[in-house]
């Protein structure tokens, strides 16, 4: 079973993503904390990580950097799902090597389509 890790500090969005992934049949992990996300990634080796950017304590950029810095998690595809929707913000994310830049709000089908792209690989 494919594994998805959700990193999102907004309670409602996190809950929605969790329900979506679980009902699609993914093994789903979720957290609102960057450090916990790194731990979960290390432990469960998810196929895809869906990650918010603006988060307290550790933001999405830091999470991505840390994932890439560790050999066990370096190759896991990371998708930013964020409210930072300007061209400049998107450029920052892409330059950091994120695998996809998804802009909020997004319909569940669109999110699933993006996630599945990376699971097939």
């Amino acid at each position, binding site marked *: 079973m494919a594994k998805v890790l959700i990193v999102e*500090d*907004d*309670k*409602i*969005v996190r*809950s*929605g*993503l969790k*329900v*979506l992934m679980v*009902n699609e049949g993914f093994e789903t992990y979720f957290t*609102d904390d960057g450090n916990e996300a790194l731990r979960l990634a290390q432990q469960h080796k998810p196929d895809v990580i869906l990650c918010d950017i*603006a*988060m*307290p*304590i550790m933001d999405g950029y830091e999470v991505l950097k840390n994932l890439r810095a560790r050999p066990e998690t370096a190759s896991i595809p990371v998708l930013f*799902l964020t*409210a*930072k*929707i*300007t061209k400049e913000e998107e450029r920052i994310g892409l330059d950091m090597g994120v695998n996809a830049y998804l*802009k*909020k*709000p*997004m*319909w*569940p*089908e669109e*999110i699933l389509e993006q996630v599945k792209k990376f699971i097939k690989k």
Partner: protein
Amino acid sequence: MCAMQQAVECIAQAIVETNNIGVCLVDACAPDMPIIYINRGFENITGYTAAEVVGKNCRFLQGAHHDQPSVPLIAEAIRQHRTMSVVLKNFRKNGEEFFNHLHLFPLYNQAGELTHYVGIQNDVTALKRDEEALRHENTTLKRTVQQRTDELQEFVSELQSELRIQKRLEAQLREMNSLLETKVEERTSELRVALEKQKALNEIRARFIMTVSHEFRTPLSGVALATGILKKFVEQFSPEERQEQLDNIREAVEHLTELIDEVIFISKSEANKLDFHPHPVDIRHLCASIIAQAQRIDTHHHDFIVRCSEPELMIDADERLLRSALTNLVSNAVKYSPPHTAVEVEILPNDTSVVIAVKDQGIGIPAEDLTNLFEPFHRAANAQTIQGTGLGLSIVKNAIQRHGGTIDVRSVLNTGTVFTITMPRKQDNEAERSYA
């Protein structure tokens, strides 16, 4: 007679016979010293013949001019039997004035007694005239020089005064120039400041719009997810699962509504278009009602306290605005402090103002966040995980300032925070009108 004596007599004879040197011999022993001999030169110079002058004292030549400075010198020389030499003003027979350079020599006999005086006369009129002319010319020259000097002096002083005027003008010009430069600089820097201000304002506005857009996208994302999920899985969902999605939609919509209200409040407040209708409000009663409301919805069993020395305390306020501000502060106090701690509102009346302090024993605010605490969308580092729009304190500040009041904050991390509002007791109507 020796040759020498012969030569001397020859010289004397030559002098006696000369035409332009006068010689006269005076008897020093006769009364009034009369002339006893004159030569041809004397006659030539004076115009008198020997017959006319012999027997007379020489002084007749002086005419009426006996007061000449050289006359007493002659008398003195005669008295002392000395040789002497003076220039005298004398008159010829025809009345013409002439200058006589007179040399006087005393003559002695074998016994050494004074017997005669010899007078040698030279007509020095021409010389004297030349001298006079020279002196006159000299004086004229001196006067001219003085005059030219004076003129030059005048010219120089005119020049100097012109120079002074020019210098003064130049100084004035310089002063005006520098004044102008200062004015230009002032104006330029004013414009620059205005431009900077406008730029800063534009940046703030742009940032505000960007932040609002960000803030809206998250709850919208929640709505999109929940509706999409419901549509996709409605058949397989249990009633509870369906309800969960509906609740999520409701919550997100409420959050959006709250955001919209707050953004509208802030933009109205910044355009000075807040509704403001002050009327007498009992501040103690208002605080008590806010605290009661907070207590009703609080699930963490805080200890709510209202302190006020007066049973009733009336101030002029827009009740809706003031209630919104105080509710915000009280709900923050509840939100950011652990269960069972005290949330306290203290009201202290002064002569013209009322101080309202809202205190909690919560997590506190980091010092570095205090400066921007009242800026829209600013959230303290330790508040990020707690739900909030970041607009609450900005709204509080605007509402209090609208009343002409002030707000201050003191906070100790992990100990507690005190927000202190100072409200004027009276609102003058003019303030309302000018503000509106």
